[in-house]
């Protein structure tokens, strides 16, 4: 099993969700986050003084999938979240040792 952590533009959430709905993916966790990458921050103004807000608002999605779903899931997220400009975000994937469904006690892929 793998965990995909996807950093995306906030307004792309619906499209990503719609794309994942069409696949065999049954859940995600969404967090509002702030950070920076190549897009850097943005400039704001306050009472005549310009300042740099170093961190952009983004969303972080955490999605658990079976090993054989990783490629298509990443492709689906990429296609849905892409605008082609700096700031589109990134996807990280990592191994997941085990999963437990709290309600039933199911373990592993059974619990996805």
């Amino acid at each position, binding site marked *: 099993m793998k965990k995909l952590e996807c950093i995306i*533009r906030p307004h792309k959430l619906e499209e990503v969700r719609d794309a994942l709905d069409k696949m065999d993916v049954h859940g995600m966790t969404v967090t509002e986050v702030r950070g920076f990458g190549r897009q850097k921050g*943005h400039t704001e103004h306050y009472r005549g003084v310009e300042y*740099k807000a170093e961190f952009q608002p983004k969303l972080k999605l955490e999605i658990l999938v079976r090993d054989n779903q990783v490629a298509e899931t990443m492709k689906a997220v990429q296609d849905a979240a892409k605008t082609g400009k700096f700031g589109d975000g990134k996807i990280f994937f990592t191994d997941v040792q085990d999963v437990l469904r709290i309600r039933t006690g199911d373990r592993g892929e059974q619990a996805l």
Partner: protein
Amino acid sequence: MTTKMSGARRWFPLAILLTLMFNGTAFAQAPSEGPSPADLKVMLDTLWVMMTAFLVFWMNAGFGCVESGLCRAKNATNILAKNFIVFAFSAIAYWIIGFGIMFAEGNSFLGMGGLLLSGADNSPATGDAYQGIFTSLNWTGVPLLAKFFFQLVFAGTAATIVSGCVAERIHYKSFIIFTLVLAGLSYPITGHWIWGGGWLAAMGMRDFAGSTVVHAVGGWSGLAGILILGPRIGKYRKDGSVQPIPGHSMALVFLGGLILWLGWFGFNPGSTMAADPRAITHVAMTTNLACCMAILSSTLMAWIMLGKPDFSMTVNGALAGLVAITAPCAFVSVTSSAIIGLIAGVIVVFAVLFFDKRKIDDPVGALSVHLANGIWGTLAVGLFATADAPGGGANGLFNGGGFASLQAQAIGTLAVGAFTFALALTAWTIIKLVLGLRVDPEDEERGLDLSEMGMEAYPHDPVRG
């Protein structure tokens, strides 16, 4: 006995004060009897007009809260700023040319004169004693500046309606320019037709506090803006179905709704422009009852049709009832006001669903409130009017007056609608060509707070050096 004593003691200081006051005047001039009844009437009428005008002014706060609450957090500063600045620009435009176009003598289509409030005027003289160029306002016995201020806050209200329609996608500067056109030109012209002694007034059209003059005019202008701007990004899915874009603060919507409700007790009862006990209490009663009935019906409609008692529909319903009763408030019975409000609450829910379906993206429901119910309220005069109400005048259809009044109301609605819509469409188009109207898609997605204002409404205190 004891109580009588303490009563006398309580009045003692006042008696001294009165003695001193009369002695003071006695020194200054020959013994006087104090203000005459006529002077007192001017004083009380002026107090009433100014106090209610201040309430109407405060409606800007209500609109700002409702509109920003029904939009997303990323656009909140922009919407609040629009609602704040719109009154300043309307006031300037209305002072320079608007008031003159609306109320100065001229022809039946346009007032000519009154630039910068210039021209003869001997207010507070009324009726035949009035000598000046603002004859259409000679029925109210208050100073000219009281008349101006009261009318100004109404012009500001019409202008602020538009900001909700075009929210979350329009350039700040383009909106401001349109405000000048609306408050300085469009609103005063159609206002002249109805309130300035123009052709619709002569025809018998009646609009007590502005269902058409203020609200439908704001609505038509906003509709033209929406059609040229198009829907917000993300409002419609690829298959054409509606993607709801929830507002960010129902707490703001709540507060704004109550501020507007309170403001309406200035808007309608103040339009008597005189401290007339019977009229202002009647109007306050009809205004409040229509609002309450509309709250009831809009909430029920939402509950039945949408499955939940949607609170945003409850607030829209309250405003719908208030807009609908604005024209008839002094011309109809209390019972009729309840029916008018009841229907307004139904109309607003259907209108919201209708506009959404037709891809007319109105983020705050301003069209459903101000346009749909501005029309309904204007027509309601022709249906429910009764000569027994404080406003007097012809009976409506349901009170044996036949179709005459209804016909005048309908012609007025159509004429003002067609003129305002055409003028607004032209103005929006010119502004679009010269300045641009809609922000870039990228900026719209980032939010207008960052792209237009450079300032977030709710900044996360960023970690920075």
